[in-house]
């Protein structure tokens, strides 16, 4: 079998997953896209392992490891997403922007708000 069939399929799957990671809004959809990227890598590993006829079968071994790690990653990732959703009420990536640079950060506006309230009260 021609090697470029699995190789190109893996490349395209990877780029599809990449697009998903960059374009999706929901964090769980982003996790799915990450799975796609991992699977593209797995396909590559298996194809090259078969092509090279490796004595140790390093490609397949790594594929199995990757699958296990992916399972762990999805577990942790989902737990984090759940936690974020529980704390923030959303799982949308573009609404989690606490690290942005602003002219007036949230902290100072909050402080001025409090001062204004204090003035109004007094």
């Amino acid at each position, binding site marked *: 079998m021609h090697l470029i069939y699995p190789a190109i399929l893996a490349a395209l799957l990877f780029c599809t997953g*990449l697009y998903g990671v*960059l*374009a999706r809004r929901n964090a769980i959809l982003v996790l799915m896209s990450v799975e796609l990227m991992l699977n593209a890598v797995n396909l590559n590993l298996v194809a090259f392992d078969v092509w090279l006829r490796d004595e140790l079968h390093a490609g397949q071994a790594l594929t199995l490891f990757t699958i296990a790690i992916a399972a762990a990653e999805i577990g942790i990732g989902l737990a984090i997403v759940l936690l974020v959703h529980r704390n923030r009420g959303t799982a949308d990536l*573009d609404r*989690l*922007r*606490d*690290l*942005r*640079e602003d002219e007036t950060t949230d902290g100072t506006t909050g402080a001025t708000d409090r001062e204004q309230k204090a003035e109004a009260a007094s």
Partner: protein
Amino acid sequence: MTTTTTAALVPLLPFLGAVGGILAGRRAPGLVRPLALLPTAVAAVLAVVVAWQQGGGRALDASTRLTPTGSVPVDLALHLDGFAVLVAVLVGVVATCVQLYSTAYLRDDPRYPSYAALVSLFTSAMLLVVYSGDLMVLLVGWEVMGICSYFLVGHYWETEAARAASLKAFLVTKLGDVPFLIGVFALADDAGTFRIDGIVRTAASGDLSHPTLTALLLLAGVAGKSAQFPLHTWLPDAMAGPTPVSALIHAATMVAAGVYLVARLLPVFAASTAALAVLAAMAAVTMVGSAVAALAQDDIKRVLAYSTVGQLGYMTGALAVGDRGAAVFHLVSHGAFKALLFLGAGVVIHAAGTNSLAATARMGGLAKRVPDAFWTMTVALLALAAIPPFSGFFSKEAVLGAAEHAAQGEADGIPGAVGWTVLVAGLLTALLTAAYATRLWLLAFRGSGQEAADHGRQPAAMTSVLWVLFVPTVALGLAAWKLPDWFDGGSLTPTLTTSLLSTGCALAGVLVVTAAWRRTAALTARTPLGAVAADPEEAPAVSEEEAIATHEAAYGSVSGAQDPADPGRLLLGPLHRHAAAGFHLDAVVHAVAVRPARGAARLARFLDREVVETYVRGAASAPGLLGAAVRRAQTGNTQTYLSVLFAGSVVLAVAAVLVASGA
């Protein structure tokens, strides 16, 4: 004790007194007065001893070299000749009188300790200048005098006039000192030594490479220090200082230092006819101009200050005709009677509560209130006006005689024109001097109107020194027959022609002013004028400080007054206004020097603020703008970051592949 050791002690004692006074100042106030008075008095006595021992014989030279100082050696050298020892006696006596006078005059002044220490330091520096045989050491004393003068003129620094005057005095004398320093270096370069005797030998043998240039450079420093045209403007303004300081520094000693220096270095000046001509022209302009200006001044001390400028002009005139004996003779006699006049003026200002002649002219019986000052000042003014038989007559005669000598072409190497210039200017000034002296006397002591307030007797410390100085004022003229032994040997006795001419001029001046005064005296009652500061309980200096501070407010200007009863105004006519303002020389200086300097300062400020700081601001704002741009990229959106990360990875990967494949 040898003469040399004694002479070394003379400048040292006041210096130690100054150091002790500064140290004692706050801790032991009781010690301040003895520390101010005693070292100066002892130094004066020692100066007399030195003069006695030297006795007008051959010049004594002693020197020691503390350390090698490069190519031209600097020695601690003493040069004791007749000029040095006599001027030192004058300095010592006047300084002692002034210290004694100050104890009463500034008795409650909180800054008296520093004042007394500065006067002592000044005395020490002046004595160093007088005795020094080395130009570098002399220069040290010269500059110490300058800084002491700066501090003492600014003693009443609470008043604007004193602050401005001290700065002006310092800057103008420094303007002369810079060329002076260059001239000293030029002399030392030619002579290979800073020793005055070595320099004089070199000059006498005609080995100076640029005699005219060197002499003119030295002349700039002399003009600054001795208040000669055009650098004289600081001296009238320096009257904003306390009266004893004016008496010591700005009448008797420091301003005479320039004349003394030229006398010491006369062979250097004599080597250049051009320098002598410049000296004569400077002396003539100074004499006549300052005498006219003195006739228009309202402040009693400013009259005396312009008079000092004019008398110093006589001395430089005598030097211009090559007779340093006459110059130093006039220096000594002028030092005595001018110090007396200033100290008497201090008494008058205290008694009258004003320094304005317009105010004292409206005050009756001032002479009765201060009899000591009245009698001593009368004699001193007669001496100033060169009326025989007082000291001023003889010393001025010596100057005019020397000028006539030179005008007849009898003096060696002096052009006749120089002699004529000095002689004509001197006679004209004699007339003007008598005129302003008479005006001062009439306005100060012959006023009519309300009786002067009685403040009681003046302190004995102040009146006694007047009588001490009264002695040389009266009797120093007799020295004219004795002094040639101490000096160069030239005759100092009056000659008949000049005596008749100058005495005639002086009497004419006296008569003209008296006649004018008779016409204007009636006006005094009709035009009330004047402000009087009365602090009978305070120290005399307080009255003076208030008078200086309020003169401009009360009379419209620091120097003149709008007084129609002034005989000087009648005599000078339209010239009065310009003379009162010192012929607007300050305005000229302002236009020529101050305004360009301000413009340059503004330019420098503009360059600094607008040009240099633009770069500085740019250096700060460029990273700031860059930072703002980078900050804008920090959206907080993880996907944006990831997009950029992956895009970068792709670019790097493509680049790596291209490089690896050799494309």
